[in-house]
């Protein structure tokens, strides 16, 4: 059987699904290969969906996609061991007709998305792992080899959407392995609670959701953040730190998650829940510097495999979907123009990425990984100082407010010399610019 | 869809309130029956367990308790009948025929349906054994009546209907099922769930004989041979008194010797979790759990097994579960009765030694 597809997409995460969908919709003969039992089966559950990226692919997705809650409130907390300080932003403006952000459960969402892919006409094969790329004598990628009997399949172009480890590209020498400094390991749990309990606990309506983003001493000095999202009948909690830090600090991720869940600010939010589904997953956090070569003769890389994640805003799936779509559009254009799928033609994909928010945002935050990595006190000293400051101010104990202010300033200065403080501010501001 | 136990529960809220309106033709169906399951002269103990349970139901309804015995000719039935009386039967329906000597679906189903149609019981209980399940499905389908399979609890409701409770979704849920408007109300019941009644020596009752109208030439399935287990070295896990099992925590195939050593000292059977079978470290018939054997031993020792729900449902009927696991948070500690947080590779040999010593000392003392 030597049938040749127009395109093969490796992986059925958000990037692969977006790519396969757009190509199939345009009438291309697409084969999508997924290692898991079904799309979503290998994916960490519970996440934020950014509507915009999906809307550009499936405009009316809200009609039947399995969405949990739209987000009306964002809390940003900095924790020390006992307390949290932070800000909340809640607005009724988020209760719009077409909300902008939703919580989703990836296992369900990906499954739905993949169903759309199939209905668009792509052939989806699951429980099949792509082991390597097949190249012709000139080195052009012409198909893939899988772990099934008679497992070779051929295509004009292969899109690698196989996630953060990008094993297929590594193995085929198209990309270097990810380094421990450029990936975070995130662990996550789902805590099940009755819907009404969640709604009263977070003070939200039936469809409304809350996101809590957390930094501070919960990561015991490592570069990382924690989060809590409300789903319909469950709460997703998780924490992630750079892999290099985990190794260096000899801390187990499960231990961190326990610590986070038992923090006095978090514990009451989870009380009485039934825990299911502990999962661990890598997140690319190397930023722009970690982005590999994105295309070549007969191939392109999209999504996490291309390291497209904005760690600061925890955006990944939107970049994945957008890169998947842009890759698909590149193939469709080339096909229409009757051009071969060679590097010079596929370079249009990179161009499109550069014009999109994907590369622009990665560019904006390109310095951040390094800054955070070299300034661990962001995760140790500052949370403690902030919390002390707040406590000092709020405790009514006969001391005058002015003395209290002085005390606070002093505590900051004694921990970080004034030069250090200013330097920190500067570094951080620059990294965000 | 399908299976009353599952989605009907969700969809059938309206049915839950359904009333009993027993059609006229079923009004004279009376009495509680238990199939006395006998193969090659041996009665399956579940039959006695069911007589014990059936006695309670019959008393509650104020009716008689009958045993139904299908058997080949021979002395075994005389003894079985005596025992049935001692375990609480008021009478025994006996069908004796060479065609019933070994179990086959066709003659057994014909015999059983004929008995039911002639003597009209309101409740018919069978063990959820291979025989019971093979037979009950045919009988219920032929009689077009309801059958609740694999029950763990029986009761009579306020209207006098049988309320049969059974696990569903691999034990995550229980459901109570009624056959309101058809007779007999049939149920198969898991072995080792109902208590074994005390035998009352000297208790007697009536025997009602009924004959089978069938010839060997009518029966299409032929028995070529019977290979007893003793000759086949097949695991007798399901009925073992004590079971010792190992999981992936044992790490290497060689380490399963620690499991068999302990089993040997205890005269126990041994088993394992599914991944162990998948690795090829133990044969499939040793697998315990949802897709393996369900066991109900008096003592179950699980070493290096995490306690996933699929494993759990296969061992939950054990009287005592002792778990050995290095991880204090392993789920197995949630349903084990006793636990040792420790390395199975060290604990197992120590347990073997401790039991060996204990049993030897007692032997000397005794």
């Amino acid at each position, binding site marked *: 059987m030597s049938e040749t597809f127009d395109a093969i997409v490796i992986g059925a995460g958000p990037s692969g699904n977006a790519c396969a969908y757009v190509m199939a919709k345009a009438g291309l003969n697409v084969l999508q290969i997924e290692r898991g039992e*079904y799309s979503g089966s290998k994916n960490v559950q519970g996440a934020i969906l950014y509507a915009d990226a999906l809307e550009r692919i499936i405009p009316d997705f809200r009609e039947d996609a399995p969405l949990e809650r739209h987000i009306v409130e964002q809390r940003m907390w900095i924790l020390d061991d006992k307390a949290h300080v932070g800000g909340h932003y809640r607005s009724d403006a988020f209760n719009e007709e077409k909300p902008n952000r939703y919580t989703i459960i990836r296992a369900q969402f990906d499954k739905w998305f993949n169903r759309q892919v199939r209905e668009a006409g792509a052939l989806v094969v699951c429980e099949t792992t792509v082991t390597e790329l097949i190249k012709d004598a000139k080195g052009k990628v012409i198909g893939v080899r899988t772990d099934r009997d*008679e497992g070779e399949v051929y295509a004009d172009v292969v899109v690698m959407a196989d996630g953060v480890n990008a094993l297929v590209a590594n193995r085929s020498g198209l990309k270097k392995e990810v380094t421990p400094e450029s990936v975070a390991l995130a662990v996550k749990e789902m805590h099940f609670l*009755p819907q009404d309990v969640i709604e009263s606990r977070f003070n939200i309506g039936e469809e409304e959701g809350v996101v809590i983003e957390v930094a501070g001493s919960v990561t015991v000095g490592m570069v990382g953040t924690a989060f809590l999202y409300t789903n319909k009948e469950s709460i997703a909690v998780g924490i992630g730190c750079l892999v290099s830090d985990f190794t260096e600090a000899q801390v187990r991720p499960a231990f961190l998650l326990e610590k986070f869940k038992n923090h006095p600010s978090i514990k009451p939010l989870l009380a009485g829940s039934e825990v299911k589904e502990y999962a661990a997953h890598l997140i690319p956090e190397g930023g722009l510097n970690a982005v590999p070569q994105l295309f070549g003769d007969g191939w392109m890389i999209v999504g996490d495999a291309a390291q497209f994640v904005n760690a600061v805003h925890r955006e990944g799936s939107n970049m994945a979907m957008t890169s998947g779509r842009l890759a698909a559009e590149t193939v469709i254009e080339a096909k229409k123009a009757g051009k071969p799928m060679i590097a010079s033609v596929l370079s249009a994909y990179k161009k499109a990425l550069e014009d999109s928010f994907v590369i622009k945002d990665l560019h904006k935050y390109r310095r951040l990984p390094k800054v955070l990595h070299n300034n661990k006190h962001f995760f140790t000293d500052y949370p403690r100082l902030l919390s002390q400051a707040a406590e000092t101010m709020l405790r009514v104990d006969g001391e005058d407010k002015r003395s209290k202010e002085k005390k606070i300033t002093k505590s900051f200065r004694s921990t970080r010399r004034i030069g250090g403080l200013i330097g920190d501010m500067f570094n951080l501001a620059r990294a965000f610019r | *869809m*399908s*299976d*009353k136990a599952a989605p009907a*529960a969700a*969809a*059938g809220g309206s*049915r*839950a309130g*359904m009333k009993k309106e027993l059609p006229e033709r079923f009004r004279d169906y009376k009495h509680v029956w238990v199939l006395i399951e006998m193969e090659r002269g*041996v009665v399956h103990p579940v039959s006695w367990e069911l007589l014990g349970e059936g006695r309670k139901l019959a008393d509650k309804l104020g009716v008689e308790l009958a045993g139904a015995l299908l058997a080949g000719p021979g002395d075994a039935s005389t003894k079985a009948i005596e025992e049935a009386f001692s375990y609480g039967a008021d009478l025994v329906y006996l069908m004796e025929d060479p065609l019933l000597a070994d179990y086959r*679906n066709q003659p057994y189903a014909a015999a059983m349906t004929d008995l039911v149609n002639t003597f009209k019981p309101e409740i018919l209980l069978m063990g959820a054994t291979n025989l019971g*399940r093979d037979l009950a*499905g*045919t009988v219920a389908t032929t009689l*077009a009546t309801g*059958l*609740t*399979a*694999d029950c763990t609890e029986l009761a009579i409701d306020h209207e006098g209907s049988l309320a049969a409770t059974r696990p*569903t*979704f*691999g*034990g*995550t*849920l*229980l*459901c*109570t*099922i009624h*056959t309101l408007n058809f007779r007999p109300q049939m149920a198969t019941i898991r072995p080792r769930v109902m208590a074994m009644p005390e035998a009352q020596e000297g208790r007697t009752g009536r025997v009602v004989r009924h004959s089978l109208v069938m010839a060997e030439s009518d029966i*299409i399935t032929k*028995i070529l041979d*019977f*290979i007893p*287990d003793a000759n*086949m070295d097949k695991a007798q896990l399901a009925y073992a008194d004590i079971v010792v099992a190992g999981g992936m925590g044992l790490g290497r195939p060689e380490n399963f010797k620690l499991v068999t050593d302990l089993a040997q000292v205890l005269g126990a059977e041994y088993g394992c979790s599914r991944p162990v079978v998948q690795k090829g470290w133990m044969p*499939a018939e040793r*697998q315990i759990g949802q897709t393996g054997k369900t066991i109900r031993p*008096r*003592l179950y020792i699980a070493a290096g097994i995490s306690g996933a*729900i699929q494993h759990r*449902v296969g061992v939950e009927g054990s*009287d*005592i*579960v002792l778990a050995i696991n290095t991880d204090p948070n392993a789920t*197995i*500690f*949630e349903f084990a009765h*006793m636990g*040792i*947080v*420790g390395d199975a590779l060290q604990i197992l040999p120590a347990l073997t030694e401790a039991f060996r010593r204990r049993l*030897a000392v*007692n*032997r000397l003392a*005794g």
Partner: protein
Amino acid sequence: MNIVVCIKQVPDSAQIRVHPVTNTIMRQGVPTIINPYDLYSLEAALQLRDQVGGKVTVLTMGPPMAEDALRKAMGIGADKAVLLTDRFFAGSDTLATSYALSMAITKIAEDEPVDLVFCGKQTIDGDTAQVGPGIACRLGLNQLTYVSSIEALDAKAREITVQRRSEGGVQVLKTKLPCMVTMLEGSNTIRRGSMPNVLRAGREPIKTFNAAAAGIEDVTRCGLRGSPTVVKKVFAPKPRADKAKLIDTTNRPTSDIANDAVEAIFAAAPKLQTDLVGRAAQA
């Protein structure tokens, strides 16, 4: 050989949760699988087909989603698939299920007589083991349940010889086709379909029967109305309040820990101790 294998799509029981308050099933995100027991029967059917030729049709009754299970079975190697789906089937108990399936099998047999029907030993959600015998009874098929191995299939003489697990041993049975077989777990290992197979499975149209297409005229024999059993109550088992009693292991020699464990066991089950000692004394 024309073989029909009945498979059921079931929720993966590992992932089912019970709502803590309402005691109803939380289906949210629970993945479905092919009932694991059915895979042993599917593999046995495929082996027979490979041996003597013919084709294997997988049949399922369920919601439209159950198509996934059929495609998976085709990827493994089944030749054809039939989906029996209709709102009239909702809430069927085993009696109604076996009725609908037997009607569909009769319909399939119109194209070519069915020689063998395979069912799983039991499902993991319903867990009744009654649908197979129900089908056999309705279609007048000779019934072979709990088969541990198929010894021989003589296509010409239309005879099959199997080993069937029974109490205390194995029966060697020989019967005539057509018959209904359920395979014992562990009796074989399901194969992994080849790439051409899974590609075909993804593309091939699946034949869908509603009640009428399956030749069912009287829909009151289906679904809730056709089910003599009534589910009155569904509830979660009482969780065991007490967790395992842990044997003290802090800084103690293993032998002490083991002795404590033995003590604890015998204290909880004195009769077990007597029996064991008795047995040891006899040995």
